[in-house]
């Protein structure tokens, strides 16, 4: 099996599962309980937090555990809307955000908030000048993803941060789900960025867990109220096995990160150069430093993306039609539509997404399969 759909999800690492199982059995106490079992669990919880903080160069009190990327995005968007409603009701995001952000924004629009959706150019990048023009005195949040999940474009967060330096009261949120472990930490930790969303299952951690980074001093209204966990910001008994597993997965992910990133980039380059030669191929992810090293989105003109996915599946190779979240609905990719890719080309798009476990040999096998599939479609398509 060749798994090239790592942006959809990843297999949990064996070490992570060992941690998950041990914690489930040996640290089953509720971290809020006063007795020794509770203390033991709380100790592990705090050390997990500390490790995660250290790995992303933050402070432990800046880390809040969530149930994953969707909750993180919902929380920052709606939590800001509630927290800062007396300062304004205007929010800014982009046309290419993950639905967790986009649909949270849509829900806020129904409640009377105003949202500006920044457009992207044909390569999938926002123009910082558009942001500058969109900012108002009642703007409370700017939410821009670091790496687009469908085409891999890296958004110009530095320029955004520079603009927002003049708007110190505006919350700046970055969805970092696709960017962790891809050599982009210095950009994510720009001092102006207030909130970051992370999801564990994208880096071989357990499902149903994630965390957000909240810059010291920033306030966020809770969405989950209850027993007061997570500094009373996110109630609910902590999912300790998953949290400890995530802390381990993150450590493994960031060990030897540069070499891993280099390998993914090399595989992407190889596949890119191979498929780019074909006349009917359109590539949406350029092979430059402006795109993430692990995402390659391309289409074969005249063949539906879904068909390409199934064709590769016959070779035991797994990719997806752009974002897994929208792929089942058969709709056109939101990002490609925002890039004004014509519908007939956009429907052909598929996404190869790599991680550190992929090898050059897999790239070779992929290319062999690609050639066969391409030739087969050429017959019916000419």
């Amino acid at each position, binding site marked *: 099996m060749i798994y090239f759909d790592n942006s959809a999800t990843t297999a949990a690492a064996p070490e992570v599962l060992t*941690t998950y199982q041990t914690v489930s059995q*040996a640290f089953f106490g509720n971290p809020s309980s006063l007795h020794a079992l509770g203390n*033991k669990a709380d*100790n*592990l919880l705090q*050390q997990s937090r500390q*490790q995660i903080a250290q790995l992303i160069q933050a402070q432990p009190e800046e880390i809040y555990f969530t149930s994953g990327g969707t909750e993180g995005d919902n929380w920052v968007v709606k939590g800001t809307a509630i927290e800062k409603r007396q300062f304004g009701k205007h929010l800014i995001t982009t046309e290419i955000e993950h639905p967790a952000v986009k649909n949270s924004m849509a829900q806020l629009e129904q409640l009377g908030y105003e949202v500006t959706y920044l457009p992207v150019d044909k390569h999938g990048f926002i123009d910082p000048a558009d942001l500058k023009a969109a900012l108002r005195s009642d703007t409370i949040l700017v939410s821009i993803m670091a790496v687009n999940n469908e085409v891999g474009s890296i958004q110009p967060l530095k320029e955004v941060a520079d603009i927002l330096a003049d708007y110190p009261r505006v919350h700046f949120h970055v969805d970092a789900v696709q960017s962790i472990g891809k050599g982009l930490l210095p950009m994510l930790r720009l001092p102006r960025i207030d909130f970051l969303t992370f999801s564990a299952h994208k880096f071989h951690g357990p499902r149903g867990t994630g965390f957000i980074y909240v810059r010291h001093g920033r306030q966020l209204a809770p969405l989950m109220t209850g027993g007061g966990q997570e500094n009373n910001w996110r109630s609910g008994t902590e999912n300790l096995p998953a949290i*400890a597993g995530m802390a381990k997965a993150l450590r493994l992910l960031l060990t030897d990160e540069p070499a891993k990133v280099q390998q993914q980039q090399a595989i992407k380059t190889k596949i890119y150069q191979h498929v780019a030669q074909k006349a009917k191929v359109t590539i949406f992810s350029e092979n430059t430093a402006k795109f993430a090293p692990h995402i390659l989105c391309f289409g074969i003109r005249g063949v539906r993306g879904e068909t390409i996915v199934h064709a590769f599946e016959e070779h035991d190779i797994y990719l997806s039609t752009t974002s897994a979240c929208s792929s089942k609905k058969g709709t056109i990719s939101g990002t490609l539509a925002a890039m004004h890719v014509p519908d007939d080309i956009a429907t052909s798009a598929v996404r190869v997404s790599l991680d550190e476990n992929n090898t050059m040999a897999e790239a070779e096998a992929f290319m062999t399969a690609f050639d066969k599939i391409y030739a087969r479609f050429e017959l019916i398509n000419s």
Partner: protein
Amino acid sequence: MEYTEIMVRYGELSTKGKNRRSFIDRLFGNVTKALHRFPALEIHARRDRLHVVLHGEDSAAVMTRLGQVFGIQNFSPSIRVERDMDQVRQTAIAMIKEQYQPGDTFKVNTRRSDHAFELDTNEMNTELGGVILDNIPGLTVRVHKPEITLRVEVRLDGIYLSSRTIKGAGGLPVGTAGRGMLMLSGGIDSPVAGYLAMKRGVAIQMVHFFSPPYTSTKALAKAKELTSKLAPYAGSIQFIEVPFTHIQETIKNKVPEAYLMTVQRRLMLRLTDKIREMHHGLAIFNGEALGQVASQTMESMVAINDVTTTPILRPVVSMDKNEIIKIAEDIDTFNLSIMPFEDCCTIFAPPAPKTRPNLEKTRVYEQLIDVEGLMAEAIAGIKMTEIKADEEFLAQDQSEIASLL
């Protein structure tokens, strides 16, 4: 700079007449213990100085530890070179360059124990002052209170240069004043009292009362961790935990509420005194500050102190709370001390304890309980632990957690 040795200057002990040798021996022992993690070191205690020869060990880490040893006035990281003026000049220039800030002034201060050396002290001062001025533009000479003083010592075995003098912890070597018991609760004051006792040369042992299930194991762990914070000043500290539950329950049952606290304190003092006797201690230290709480009025001290003639020394007695906190922060015990675990001083605390207990009544009420029997029971249940620096007690399961993460 790659320093070759650290020159340590003694504190007050130079004034101590014929006890000097024993003071130096004790300091030598304490320095050796404090630096036991650096195996390559060679330590020589001489009459006027102590020399720590680094043999490649990290000078900054060694100096951090040295800064915690009482009995040291100051120390200087130094470089030894051969008795060769070229080497002396090069080292002097490099040393000043590293330290120099725009606008600084300097002087050279030479001492010779080898009077046969080619240059005398004045010649050496002039020679080195000249080359430094030539090589570091902007630097000027100032004989009176310069920012940088380059000290040069010409000895038979080589020439020693140093330009920094770092303030030591002061005080007297721990152990030179004898042994004392510290009543350690877990609050802010008693660790500070312990620190101050050690500063004056006392080797302290911790006496901690705990009352499970009224106090949690975390309170005990906290007291141990506080001990670990103080251990660097002494090498290691004996921690003595005394079970106090039965005594507290009995007092609560038998003694009128207003006198609970006073009688309880008397029992603590009696037990501490008994332990002191067993360990050949000379005095008892505690963290009482006058007027801070009900047990710390002079009337309470009269009623409590009544049980012994052993000196009870209260290093923080006249300090304001914020003065105590300042020291607690400096010795890094403050954040631990404010962790909110109930200790045995606060359980059963009556809403209105007597701030002016009557001595006669106190004695009468104490007779309502079996003092001897209860004390014997508590002494029999004592547990002792030798605690060193950097030990963790609050965070348990460390290795298990490390393997999980």
